[in-house]
């Protein structure tokens, strides 16, 4: 039923890293999977890059999202409560976000994605 579809909650994704690989994921969320998915936050060491990512997101028809610097990762988790965290940072930092993303206080479990492509 249309009303059931409208009421279904979309899965919430936070993207850590907003470089080339992140574009692949947020583009898919904003386009093919927009009925069931949404981006809820960007985190990066670089504000300019996050601002550009928000520009691209908006050009794809998705609302812009709050941005958090890497040092504000815990704050991002608490404030935006993502269901899943997509990590596309440089390889030596992946484990930091997998650990922090898993252990941040939350009343629900959270999947972490580690990007290799």
């Amino acid at each position: 039923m249309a009303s059931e579809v409208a009421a279904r909650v979309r899965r919430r994704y936070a993207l850590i890293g907003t470089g080339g690989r992140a574009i692949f994921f947020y583009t898919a969320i904003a386009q093919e999977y927009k009925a069931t998915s949404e981006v809820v936050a960007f985190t990066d060491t670089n504000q300019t890059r996050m601002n550009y990512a928000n520009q691209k997101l908006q050009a794809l028809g998705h609302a812009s999202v709050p941005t958090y610097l890497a040092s504000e990762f815990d704050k991002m988790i608490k404030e935006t409560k993502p269901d899943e965290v997509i990590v596309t940072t440089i390889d030596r930092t992946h484990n930091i976000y997998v650990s922090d993303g898993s252990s941040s206080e939350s009343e629900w479990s959270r999947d972490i994605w580690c990007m290799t492509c």
Partner: protein
Amino acid sequence: MTIDVPRTLSIFDAVSKTGNNVRVTFNYRYAPHNTKVFELIRSGAIGKVTSVHFEWCLDTFHGADYFRRWHRDKKNSGGLLVHKSTHHFDLINFWLQTRPATVYAQGDLKFYGRENAESRGVDKFYTRANGSEVAQGDPFALHLKDHEQLKALYLDAEHEDAYYRDQSVFGDGISIEDTMNVLVRYKNGAVLTYSLTAYAPWEGFRVSFNGTGGRLELEVVEHSYVNSGGEQTVEGSTSKTTLMLRQLLKQPEEIEIPSVGGAHGGGDAVLLNDLFGEPVTDEYMRAASHVDGALSILTGIAANRSIATGQVVNVDDVLRIP
């Protein structure tokens, strides 16, 4: 997934403490030709696989790009045998449903880097292309101003973190290899010879499987790319694929691959559906976890240890994955 043993352990720790899942996006598993290889091996078309010969060519467009970016420092990437070959070693684990036992490797920087350029008679150098007169004459220079997205992501952003996306591939400070050869014995007894070359004239790979029932040979030529430099749906898309099944005592047969366009051999779209779409049962079991991630990078980490020591490395001595 990550670059060394301590970081791998921290990921396993996080998973066991929280019970959360870690998904590793091995997109190459999903490419139709790679899935077809899995299907044929599983069906027993060439009997028991005894050895594999696998060579991967990164060309002077895509391959060179690793030597301009954060990847050029082994502390960031673990080197190409970890960062890039993770996909290839994962394919072997996936295709043969096994895991690595022992690794011997040799690796060198033979083309990129200042010293190699000097030995070829180059005598003009630069650190980064933007603002350099010398870079104007270098066919390997990346001019960020000429690419709208690269300029926005990196040139316009570098004042914040001093990350220069356009470093010279013939500069100093490169600590990764560009020429790598690896020998791996797997727990199921199969042996792999593998090479990765980062300055090839074409981009793609060839893999041959020897089995008790014949040979399977795959050649894939890919469209090359610079990350974020162009249309993402063509990054690594295939321009030509040939899969030959040569069963013993039979005529060779060219196997048709379902044609799926798109990036990374056509695997990206299928992967995205696995990640974001409605869950479906995948008969090929391609979804990968942190365990698959670890088993793949351990081959590269063991290879790095072998390169450094000159010794054969027992993978379980590096890290034993239950």
